[in-house]
C-alpha cells in the first residue's frame, strides 16, 4: 500500500518498535495503514450502511409479514386503492436515484480532473453539488407528496384505526418517510462535505449516502407494489 504523501512506506511483516512506520508523517497515516487493511480510504461507514440496510429491511419485513397475516385472518380488510398521487411520488423518487447517480458521476470526474485540469474539476464539482441538491429537492418533494396522499385518505374518512388496511398504510408510509428524512439529512451532510474538497473520504461519504438513498428507493418500490396489490 502506498499513499501519495508517503511513497516510501513498505508495510513490514515484523514488529516495528513503538512509534511510526518509517516514512509516515503523522499518526493518522500510521493508523490508517495498520487499521485499514482493505484500502487506505474505506470508511467504516461504508460497511456500516449495509448493516443498517439489513436491520431496516428486517424491520419492514416484520411489518409486511404482519400485514399479510392480518389481511388473511379476518374479513374486515377495506380495499380503498392507493391515492393516485403516490404513483407520481414513486416516479419522483426513482428520478431522485438517477440524479444521485449523476451527482456521483460528476464527483468522480471532479476527482479525476483535480490533478490535471483544475478548472474542469471545479465545474464538475459544481455539477455534482447541483445534482445532489436536486436529489434532496426531489426527496423533499416525495415527502410532501406522501403527506398529500395521507390527506387524500383523510378526505375519504380513512384514519389510522379505521381499518387494518389503513392502519398498515399509514404505518408503512410513515416508517418509510421517517427513514427517508434521515436519508435527506445524510445527503445534506454529503453536500456539506464535498463543498470544497473532492478528497477520497468524500467519495466514501457520498457512497454511504448513496447506498442508503438507493435502498430507500428500492424499499419504496417494494412497499409500493405491496400497497397497490393489497390496499
Amino acid at each position, binding site marked *: 500500500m502506498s*499513499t*501519495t*504523501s508517503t511513497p516510501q512506506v513498505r*508495510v513490514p*511483516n*515484523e*514488529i*516495528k518498535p*513503538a*512509534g511510526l*512506520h518509517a516514512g509516515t*508523517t*503523522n*499518526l*493518522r*497515516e*500510521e*493508523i*490508517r*495503514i*495498520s*487499521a*485499514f487493511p*482493505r484500502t*487506505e*480510504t*474505506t*470508511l*467504516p*461507514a461504508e*460497511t*456500516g450502511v449495509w*448493516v*443498517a440496510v*439489513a*436491520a431496516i429491511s*428486517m*424491520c419492514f*419485513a*416484520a*411489518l409486511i409479514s*404482519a400485514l399479510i*397475516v*392480518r389481511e388473511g*385472518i*379476518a*374479513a*374486515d*380488510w377495506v380495499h380503498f386503492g392507493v391515492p393516485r398521487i403516490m404513483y407520481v411520488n414513486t416516479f419522483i423518487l426513482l428520478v431522485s436515484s438517477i440524479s444521485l447517480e449523476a451527482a456521483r458521476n460528476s464527483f468522480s470526474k471532479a476527482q479525476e480532473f*483535480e490533478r490535471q485540469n483544475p478548472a474542469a474539476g471545479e465545474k464538475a464539482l459544481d455539477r455534482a453539488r447541483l445534482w445532489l441538491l436536486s436529489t434532496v429537492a426531489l426527496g423533499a418533494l416525495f415527502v410532501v407528496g406522501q403527506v398529500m396522499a395521507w390527506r387524500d385518505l383523510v378526505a375519504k374518512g380513512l384514519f*389510522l*384505526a379505521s381499518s*387494518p388496511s389503513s*392502519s398498515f398504510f399509514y*404505518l408503512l408510509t410513515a*416508517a418509510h418517510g421517517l427513514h427517508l428524512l434521515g436519508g435527506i439529512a445524510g445527503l445534506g451532510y454529503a453536500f456539506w462535505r464535498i463543498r470544497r*474538497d473532492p*478528497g*477520497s*473520504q468524500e467519495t466514501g461519504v457520498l457512497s454511504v449516502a448513496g447506498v442508503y438513498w438507493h435502498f430507500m428507493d428500492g424499499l419504496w418500490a417494494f412497499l409500493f407494489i405491496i400497497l397497490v396489490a393489497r390496499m
Partner: protein
Amino acid sequence: MSTPDPTIHQHAAPTGFIRKHVFSLDHKVIGRQYYDLALVAVFLGLLLSWLMRIHLGWMNAPIPLLGKLFPSGAPGNVMTPDLYLSLMTMHATIMVFFVLTTAPFAAFGNYVLPIQVGAEDMAFPHFNMMSFWVTFLAFLVLISSFFVGDGPPLAGWTSYAPLSSVGAVAGPGQGTGQTLWAVSIAIFCIGQLLGSLNFITTTLDLRTKGMSLARLPLSTWAWFVTSVIGLLAFAVLLPACVLLILDRTAGTSFFGPTGLVVNDTVLPYSGGSPLLWQHLFWFFGHPEVYIAILPGFGIISTVLPAFARKRLLGHQVMIGCMVSIGFLSYMVWGHHMFVSGMNPFSALMFSVPTLIITIPATIAVLMWLGTVYGARMRYTTASLFCLGFISVFITGGLSGFFLAQPSLDTYLHATYFVVAHFHFVMAIAAMFGIFAGTHFWFPKMYGRMMNETLGKWHFWLTFLGVYCVFMPMHYLGLAGNVRRYAAFTDNYLVPLIPLHKFITMAALFVGATQFIFFFNFFWSRFRGPKAPDNPWDATTLEWSTTSPPPFDNFGGRHLVVHHGPELYGVEGAANDYVMQVSPEQVDAR
C-alpha cells in the same frame, strides 16, 4: 489524496469530567457504564425474585414493608396475585434485557472487542455513546412503571396479547404501566441496534494488521455472531412493540380479536390476532436467548484455555458451532408456541430444527471438556466459573431436549419444568459466563486484582445453591406445578408447598451469597492489589497493553498480529504460551 485523511474512528483525548466519565466516546468507559447498569439491574431483579420466592413459600404471610412499597398491591403487607404477577414481569424483563443482554454482550463486548481486534476504538464512537444512553433511558422508562398510579405491568416479559394490548380495562398494571413497558422495550431495541452496528463494523473493518478473521479470539467471534443475531432480531421486536403501542393507544386492531370481552366490557377490536403477537415476539425471543448465551460461549472459550494452559480443542469447530447456532436460532421460534393451537405438522417443522440446534451446542460442550481433559488446570475463580458454566449448561440443555418435543411439551409447557430449563441456561449459565468474564477481565478494566478467596467462596456457595434452587423445579414441573401462579390452592399442588419452601430458602441463601461478589467487586475496584499487564499469561491482544489500557488502547503502538489466540502449552517457546503479537516463530499454526 489531497489532504491527510482524518482517521475516521479516532477522536481526541477527552478533557473535562463530563466528556471523560459521563458522555464518553471511549468504548472502555462505555463498556464499564454498561456493566454498572447491569449491576444495578441485577440487584433490582434479585430483589424482585426474593419477594416472589418468599410469597411462594409462605403464601398468606405478611411481608414487612411490602404494603409501604406497594399500597394497592399488598394491603396489610400480604402480596396479592396481581402484585406477584407484576413482580414476575418486572423481574424477567429486567433480567433478560438489562442484565443478560447488557452485561455479556454490551458491557464486555464494548470493553474488550476493540482491544482484541487491535483497534483504537469502535467504528462509530458517537453511536456507541448514544447506544449506552439510549439503553439507560430505556431502563429509566421501565423502572418508572413502578411509580405510576396503576403499578407495573403483569403480562409477563412475553407480554402476550390480548392482556397486554387492551389497556387499563384489564386491571392493575395494564394501564400506563404496560404502555411504559412497551415504550421502554422499543427504546431498548434502538440502543441494541446501534450497538450491533458498531460491533459488526468494528470486527469487519478495524482489525489490525495480521488479525485475520481466523485469528480472532473466540470471544470476539461470539460477540460478532451475537451482534448479527441481535441486529436482525431487535429489528423485528421494534415494529412489534410499535404495533402493541398502537393497539393500546390508537384504537387499531392488530392483536385484538373481534368481540373480546374483558372485565364485563365488550372491547371495540375487530379482526386482530393474539397469535400474531406471539409469532412476532418469539421470532425475536428465541434469537434473544442465544444473544444471552453466545457471549458466554465466547468467554468460556477464551478463558478456559488460559487456565488449562492448553489450546482449545477445535478452535474452528467452535466458530462453526457459534455460527450455526446463530443461523438455526431463527428457525425454532415456534417451539414456544406448541400449545397455541398450531397445526401439529408446523410443530414438527419447529421441533426438528430445535433438536438440530442441540448438536452444535453439544459439540461446543465436548470441545470444552476435551480442552480440560488432560490439562494441568489452574484453578482460579475465573476458571472455576468456566467449569461451573459447563456443568449448568449441560443440565439446562438436557431439559431442553424434552421441551423440544411437542408431545412432551404439551404437558410440560408453562410448568416449572420450563422455569428450571431457562433458569439453568440463562440465569445460571449466562451469569456464570458474566462472572468468569468479570474475574478474567477485571484486572484489565480496573487495573487491580479481585480477591481470589472471596471469589472462590462466592463460586462454591453459588454453585451449590443454584442447584438447590433450580434442580427441584424439574420435579415440580413434572408433578404438574403450573408456572406464573401466585398461589397453590389446587389439591395436587398443596403437597408441593414444602418443596417451594426449600427452594425459597435456597434462593435467599444464594441471594445472600451474591453480596460476597458485590463486596469483592467494589472493594477490589478501590483497594485491590495493582494488576500487572498480563496476570493470567494469556495470549490475546488485550494482554499486550497496560492494565487499564491507555486512552487509545495501545499507547500509539500499532500492533501486528502473528498468531492465532490458541498458543497455550507450546513446546519450545520461551514460556508455555506465545502471545498473538509475539514475533516468535513457532511450528504450531
